[in-house]
């Protein structure tokens, strides 16, 4: 019986978790609304995994109150477990078992049996596009297929709350796209999803709301637009470069990063573009041009751009999302 009074599916209030002297989660508060994809972001060590482990009932906590679908986590953990589908960051599969057997194992843990289980397994594999690989052993699958199977194992029992921890790590573009579509479909079917990722574009693309935590504390929460509005003191300069052989782009970004008012410099993979985040008061680009000319870089264009979520994350946490 649901005890909810509003559309919040997960409510976390005053959550605190200590490991000895280390406060991993510090008085954390947030809500996840029913039927939304909730992005949960934070640098490594921010307390993100600890929080997800607590919500998944895998870890006890010191203080606070967590309610999921109206159930109290401390007193009704078993009922909550039945509602949750966990898709961990690591591939959590039996490599010697087939795709079908892996999904069947996890479906069985949730009490599904007989024809109901068979149907659930078939549907889960179909959902992640592995129906034709049902008899293939997990250990023989590609990284992308394993990721998809990892998701199938977490959703076969039709959970109401799905926790997806970095579900696209190490997958090819095709599998990533498939996974993203699957997540949207799950949301459209009514599931509530908590999603973490180190790929900011994914988060921007798929999440309805985003929470950013650092040092165990919530530093920002809202839609993408709401979060971007929080940070008003940063802007970006995008520098388009001529293709040049033997250009030491890393040395250039390091020199640019040392200039006054420059917060961050990111070069794209092929070295054709530099993104320079600077303070809003930054107006004279002469020092930038000087560094680039001294390095022998041929510049095509300079453009001012509004800050993105990555810039916002940096501004809020002082660290990049992919930093250790």
């Amino acid at each position, binding site marked *: 019986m649901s005890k909810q009074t509003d559309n919040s599916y997960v409510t976390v209030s005053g959550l605190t978790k200590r490991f000895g002297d280390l406060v991993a989660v510090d008085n954390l508060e947030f809500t996840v609304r029913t039927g939304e994809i909730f992005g949960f972001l934070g640098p490594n060590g921010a307390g993100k995994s600890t929080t997800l*482990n607590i919500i*998944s*009932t*895998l*870890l*006890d906590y010191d203080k606070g109150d967590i309610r999921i679908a109206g159930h109290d986590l401390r007193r009704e953990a*078993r009922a909550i*477990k*039945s509602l*949750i589908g*966990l898709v*961990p960051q*690591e*591939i*959590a*599969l*039996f*490599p*010697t*078992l087939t795709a079908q*057997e892996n999904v*069947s*194992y*996890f479906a*069985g*843990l*949730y*009490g599904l049996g007989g024809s109901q289980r068979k149907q659930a397994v078939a549907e889960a594999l179909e959902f992640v596009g592995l129906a034709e690989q049902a008899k293939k*052993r997990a250990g023989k699958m590609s990284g992308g297929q394993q990721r998809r199977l990892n998701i199938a*194992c*977490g959703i076969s029992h039709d959970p109401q709350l799905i926790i997806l921890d970095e579900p696209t790590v190490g997958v090819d573009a095709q599998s990533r796209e498939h996974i993203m579509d699957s997540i949207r479909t799950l949301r459209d079917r009514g599931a509530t999803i908590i999603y973490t990722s180190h790929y900011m574009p994914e988060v921007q693309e798929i999440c309805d709301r985003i929470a950013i935590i650092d040092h165990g504390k919530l530093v920002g929460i809202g839609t993408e637009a709401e979060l971007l509005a929080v940070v008003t003191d940063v802007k970006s300069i995008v520098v388009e470069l001529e293709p040049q052989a033997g250009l030491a782009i890393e040395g250039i970004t390091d020199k640019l990063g040392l200039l006054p008012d420059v917060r961050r410099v990111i070069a794209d993979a092929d070295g054709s573009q530099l993104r320079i985040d600077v303070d809003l008061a930054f107006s004279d680009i002469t020092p930038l041009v000087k560094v680039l000319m001294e390095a022998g870089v041929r510049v095509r264009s300079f453009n001012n751009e509004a800050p993105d979520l990555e810039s916002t994350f940096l501004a809020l946490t002082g660290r990049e999302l992919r930093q250790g």
Partner: protein
Amino acid sequence: MFSIFKAAQLDLLRDRFGLFFLIFFPTILCFLLGTLLASMDNPDAVIEPMTVEYVVEGDSAETQTVVDALIEQFEDVEGLDLVQASSLDAARAHLDAGEITAAIAIEEPFAIRIYEGTDSVQSRAVGAIFTGVARITGSYQALVGHYEQLYAEQYAEQAAAAQAAAAQMPQDEVSGGEASGGETVQDATAGANTPAASADQAAAADSADAAIDVDFSATSLVANKEFGISRTMMDYYAIAMIVMIIFMGGFSGGAMTLYDARRQGTLRRTLASPQSRSSIYVQYVLSWVPANMAQVLVVMLVASLCFGAQYAMSWQDNLLLFVMLFVAGQATTSIAVIIGMFIKRANPSLVLMPLLWVLLFLSGTFNKDVFIAGFSQYLPPYALQSAAFDLTLFGRQEAALVAVAVSAAVFALALAVGTVLFNRKKVA
């Protein structure tokens, strides 16, 4: 309910490494050592057939009785023919001509003089056989002498008691009474020469027999047990090998149970399911039941079918042997699972293996030809081997039943303790 159990079996059957240690490693050990040990059972020299001529130097009825019994005992012995010679000279002539293996002269009182032939190995065999006969007969005679003396003393005591009782009776009762067969003790003991007294002596002898209760048959002096005479090295080695394997397999596999599940990530995910931690833990431990059965069966069957290893004489004892070894393996596994729970950063199997080798080394072992003294005979590997040999060689079940009971108790205790500890752990 049985998801973990079922997945563990499928995983085991498809894991080449696991299968290697479960089936192929014991099988290879059986073949390697079976072949090696089979040659150790081959005799250094063939001593049969042997023909021994005997002469009896004495004509008393006792000597003839002993000789007849001796000949009868050797009638069924293959490879040894006892033939009576017309005289010692004739026998020695046959010996000198190399026609017989040895000649023996049976003298009074019972003694055997052996004349050896030219084949030293055969001569040693004949010497061993008849020295044994002489020793056993000597022991037998000593025992008979002992009981003869005992009877004589008891009879003398009873006669003295009867005479004393007769002396205390009124004279007229003794002289006036017509003694008739055993009517009363007093009557019967009135005089040794009366029929009543004879009956009383017989009763006294019966009483002594009943009190001493000695069976003078030859089999009571030499227990007809299998002391390894017809046993091969493989009979011993198969059991020693199973004991080694159940400890190795139990420790290694048990310790790796949670480590593997943790490494694969399946443990964390399993703990996130609505299954209780107790149920999860019990399933993990019980998932080793088929493997523990299999590793005992594999060695028992391969050693038996391929190398003719014999275990117990009856199927019931063989079943008990199997149960004992299986339950011991399961107990080992349940302890190892607990240990493995606490070893997270290193491979628990590699951590435990040196400790296991130390345990096996300290436990010692024994077989047909070898005895390696252990640190203590109460160490589990030695105690198990001892119980197994007690069962298979002598048909004694007591030690095996104790081993089953102790192993079952250890298993139950370890399962309970492990479940409590697993429930207390907060992180997978």
